[in-house]
Structures are given as structure tokens and as C-alpha cells.
């Protein structure tokens, strides 16, 4: 009843992060321009649109807008509606101590553009620095169902398998992209994940629990989603200014000592 055996150590383990090639955040340049915001909400909507179309990835902090891409176009579009962008422009290398959050936001914008072109819908989540979510909502659900990544649980409800994503940037400019399985219940007519509170109110707790995967299943499903997301063995994220950051598309293998 209480017996257990001791085996030798030195086990190989998979850990759920993708390794970046090189140290891309050591030399991360942007164009910085002064900005006076008139309508914050509208400005962010325009910035999201500019990023989606690949014109520029941009983020605002204090009185400065940091742009990777066509800064003239950003100034032109914002000037018309929601902010005044100053003429002064300087190309600057972002500093890890000072601009870590700017780097992260610019990266996620580029990642979202890339993921959306591969059939994923992206979700920012409540916190800017927190995890992001990718769901394969723009892909053929029958095909996803065959791979165990989509299960209909009602007329207008389905469980989708997607990805949580979190970029970690180290003090030396190295980075890791953490990925885990995201399994929300999606309201199909509205193409949106419902909250756990909504799911509970709809009496879906038990059915949802039956879809919680054990480790091997989770491992396989995340890898299937990575195969859809990646291009071969690489995940290449290209910013609107052409800079690319490349990750290996496999979980890291670590030897436990």
C-alpha cells in the first residue's frame, strides 16, 4: 500500500517553451516620435488596424510613440483622427530595463498578424503584460475535429483547443516563448469564448471537466497546434519593419539533475 521504488535520476524532460535564435532583443530598433493623444481608445483601434495590415507595429508610452514599420503612415492616419504625431523622429535601440513592455507589445502585435494569417484569432486578455491567447476560429472545424482540436457540445457551443502564449525576455536579450493549451468553450454564433462564470451558469461544468486533458494528451494537442502555427520547424515572426525573430518549433528538452 505504501511501497515505492527509487530509480536513477538524470531524466530528460520536455518543458513548454520555444527557444529563440540569437539574442534578438539586444538590438531591437524602433522609430520614436513625440505624440499628443486626443482620443486614446480610437488611437488604439487605429494602431491595431495598422498592425493587422502590416503597415506598422506601434505602441505608445508617455509622450512617445514607438514604431516598427512605416512611421509616416502612422503619423498621417493618427493625425487625421485621434492624435498629433510630432515631426521629430529618431531611430533608437530599445533598452531592456526601460522598454521591456514596449518590446513585448510590439512582439505580440507582429505575432498576432502572423497567427491570423494562419487561421488563428488572437485575444489580448485583460493585462497587457499577461498571457495572450490564440484560437483556430478561422479554420475548418471538421478538420480540427478530426485532430481532436474541436468538439461540439451543443447547438451553439463547442470546445476549441488553442494556445496560451507568453514571451519572456531575459536580461541579456535572449528570449523564450512559453506555450500551453487553451481550451475555452466558444459560442459559435458570436465566435467568442464564454467566461467560466457563463459556462457554470449554463450547467457546463461537468462536460467541461470531461475535456480536461491528461499530460500526454495535452502534450500532443499543443504540438498539433504548433504544427499548424509554425512554418516547418520554425516559428518566424516578422515585424512590420522587416526585422524577424525566429523560434525553434519544439519544446525544449532539459535533463533533470
Amino acid at each position, binding site marked *: 500500500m*505504501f511501497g515505492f521504488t527509487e530509480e536513477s535520476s538524470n531524466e530528460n524532460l520536455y*518543458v*513548454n517553451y520555444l527557444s529563440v535564435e540569437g539574442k534578438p532583443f539586444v538590438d531591437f530598433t524602433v522609430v520614436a516620435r513625440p505624440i499628443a493623444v486626443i482620443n486614446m481608445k480610437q488611437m488604439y483601434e487605429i494602431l491595431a488596424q495598422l498592425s493587422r495590415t502590416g503597415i506598422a507595429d506601434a505602441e505608445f508610452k508617455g509622450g512617445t510613440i514607438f514604431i516598427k514599420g512605416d512611421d509616416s503612415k502612422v503619423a498621417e492616419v493618427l493625425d487625421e483622427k485621434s492624435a498629433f504625431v510630432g515631426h521629430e523622429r529618431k531611430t533608437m535601440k530599445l533598452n531592456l530595463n526601460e522598454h521591456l513592455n514596449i518590446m513585448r507589445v510590439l512582439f505580440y502585435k507582429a505575432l498576432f498578424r502572423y497567427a491570423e494569417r494562419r487561421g488563428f484569432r488572437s485575444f489580448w486578455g485583460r493585462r497587457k503584460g499577461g498571457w495572450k491567447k490564440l484560437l483556430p476560429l478561422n479554420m475548418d472545424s471538421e478538420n480540427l475535429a478530426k485532430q481532436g482540436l474541436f468538439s461540439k457540445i451543443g447547438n451553439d457551443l463547442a470546445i476549441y483547443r488553442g494556445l496560451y502564449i507568453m514571451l519572456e*525576455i531575459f536580461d541579456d536579450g535572449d528570449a*523564450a516563448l512559453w506555450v500551453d493549451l487553451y481550451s475555452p468553450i466558444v459560442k459559435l454564433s458570436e465566435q467568442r469564448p464564454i467566461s467560466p462564470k457563463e459556462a457554470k451558469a449554463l450547467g457546463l461544468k461537468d462536460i467541461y471537466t470531461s475535456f480536461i486533458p491528461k499530460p500526454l494528451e495535452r502534450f500532443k494537442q499543443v504540438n498539433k497546434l504548433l504544427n499548424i502555427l509554425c512554418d516547418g520547424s520554425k516559428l518566424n515572426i516578422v515585424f512590420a519593419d522587416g526585422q524577424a525573430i525566429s523560434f525553434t518549433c519544439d519544446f525544449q528538452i532539459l535533463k*533533470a*539533475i
Partner: protein
Amino acid sequence: MIPQKISATYIPEPHLQFYMGEHISPRRIVILKPFGYRNLLHKEIYIKLLTDIETRELGIKLINHLINGHSAFSEHIPPFYEIFGAKLVFDKNSDVVITTPNELLVNLENTFNSLKTIPSGIILITLKDLPTNVYSHAKIRTLLGSANLKQSLRTQFIRKEIIEKYTGTKGYIYLLMNIATAIYTKASGVPWKLSRSITPTKGLILGISFSRKHIKVSDKEVIYYGAIQLLDRHGEHLYTEIKMFTSTLEELSTKGYFVPYDKMKSILSASIDKYGKVPYMIIHKSSPIVDEEIKAVQEVINKYSNKDYPIFYIFAHIKSNTIYRAYDPSALDYSIRRGLMLLRSIKSNKYIQYILFTTGRLYKSISERDKLGTPRPLEVAITTNMPDISRLPN
């Protein structure tokens, strides 16, 4: 060879010290007897059952199984007295109070009053629907009265759904075992202690956790509550107290739940004044650490510390909602072994962070982990004045 950003190692779990020996598994209490065996030997623990009509029979059956022992699917729990040396006293004709969710609070207080003249009593509450306000009330009452056993409300809540879920499975034996251990502990018994100290030398462990809700007292000001718990270096409870904090809504939205500077200083100073200067203090909290808390901790430690008697501290935030996972392909179901720790070789944050798997396969067996889901680790973010911890592994 390019050094890894992250390295993996296993942390040995401390064994548990029982009355007659030590072992890694809490279930060994059946054979080795609880650590405080002699303290409650032959003593009586009175049980009152507060239940709705639907759960009455299940509740009575469960208590009888605790008293007399039970077997299912080759698993067995001996009678309570045989394991713990203390006797459960329960009469199904006089110790059962029928209640409803609406009457529960009043019935709970009345039952508590009826137990006040008895040296050791526990109220077992088995219900179909458990009102969360009553549950919170009972927990706060327990904490407030923890210094005095007779004034402290001792309760054990069990939902009907849980009893039904495990009835007829071997999980029912584990449920009984867990409830039996909880009852023994709530009756002031010590089931086990860690066989070795958590701290390398004499030390204190101060834990701070917050209630989930804050109360708005004006347009700007809010109040919220924190439980302060002090343990000795073996993890044994010294005291718990509830503190009320005030803050502005704006501060709370940017900092999260925090202990204001002056309060943090007084909490820490009070624990050192009461339990003496120790060379090692661990302070951990459930919400992220903020700068004013660090400043307060540093100032108090510096005040009590000197060249001849330095005091070292570790101030930690323990985060449970993390994105990290690990998989062990040598196990049939890829489940990780409990005790795995992942360390970064380079910082990515102002704190030193450890990723620690406190759930997972036990020991080194490669069989499947018979549980739902995938183990998710905790992340411990620390700030410290200990030079050897401040350096990260290469």
C-alpha cells in the same frame, strides 16, 4: 556547449515525523501514529452533525465509518481510535441538527454554544448546497478564535456531492482518511511535523494572505483583510491574526492587495518581539510584492540585525496561476514527478524566480498518475539579502 536558459533539478521532499518514526507519505500515520499521539491519548472528541434532510443519512454513515473504520477495494481505514488514540463521541439521536442553507448560520452558532462546555468538539457540516457566506464566516471565526480552543469555532464542511462522488470507490477511503486527519488536527492534535527544519538554522516563517473581496467605504477609500500566520522552522503554527488594511481604489488597482508600509513594519517587528530575534526569516505572501513592503522588511531586518548577529530574510510571492508545464516521456502518461524545480540562469525580472512542481507523480514510479488534468507548478518570486541565493546558477 551553449548553456541552457533554464535548468531542471529535483528538490528532495522533507519526510514527515510521526510518533513512532518518519516517512514521506502522510498515510503512514495509520501505522506510525500521529506526532502528538500521547497528547490526546484516550481523550474524547465530540462530534455534532449539522445537515440538511437529504444529506442526513450520508453524513451519519460517514461519521460511523470514521468511528468504526471501513474497507473498500482493498483499501482500509482502521477505527479513528486505533489510529489517533482519541475517541470520537457521536450519538445519531442527539448529535444531529437538521438545518437549511437559510438557517445554517443561526444553527451553527447555537451548536457552537452547546459545545462550549465540552473540552473538545467539532461541528461536521454536510449539505447539498453550501452557502459561501457561511463558509467564509466559519473560517474567519476559526481564525479569530484560534488562540483559544474553547472560543474557536471548529468546523468541517463536506458537500453532499463529494460524499456521493467517492462512495463505492477506493477514493472514499482517502476521503475518510483526510477528514479523520482534519478532525484530529482541529481538535488540537498534531498529525505530523516535518522531520527536518525548513530553514537551515533557527527561523520564523511569516505568511500573509488576503481575503478576495475589498469593501468600498467611500468614493476613494477601500478596506480589505489579510490573515497573518506565523510558523516555526518545522512548519508548526505559532499564531494567526486577522488584520484590516485601508487603501485607495487607485492604489489597489495598480499594486494589487498589499500590506501598507507602516503595517508591514509593525507586523514584522511584533513577530520578532514576541518570538525573539532569529537568524532567518521567511516572509511569503499570496499577492505580488510591492516596493513599500520590501522597504519595510529591509528596515525592520536592519534594525534588529547587526554585525555580530546578522538576520537574513527571504521575501517571496507565490504565484499559482502559471503558464509553465513539463512532461516526462519516461512516464506512461508523460506526467511529471513532484518536486521538480526549474531555474532560470539569467534573470528576466527584478526577482529571482523558481518554478516548482508541488503536484505530480509521487516518488519515481513510472505508472500513470491517476488524477484529472496536468500538473501545474507554482512560481516563487523572491527578494533576499542572502548573498549565496542572490547569485543565479550558471
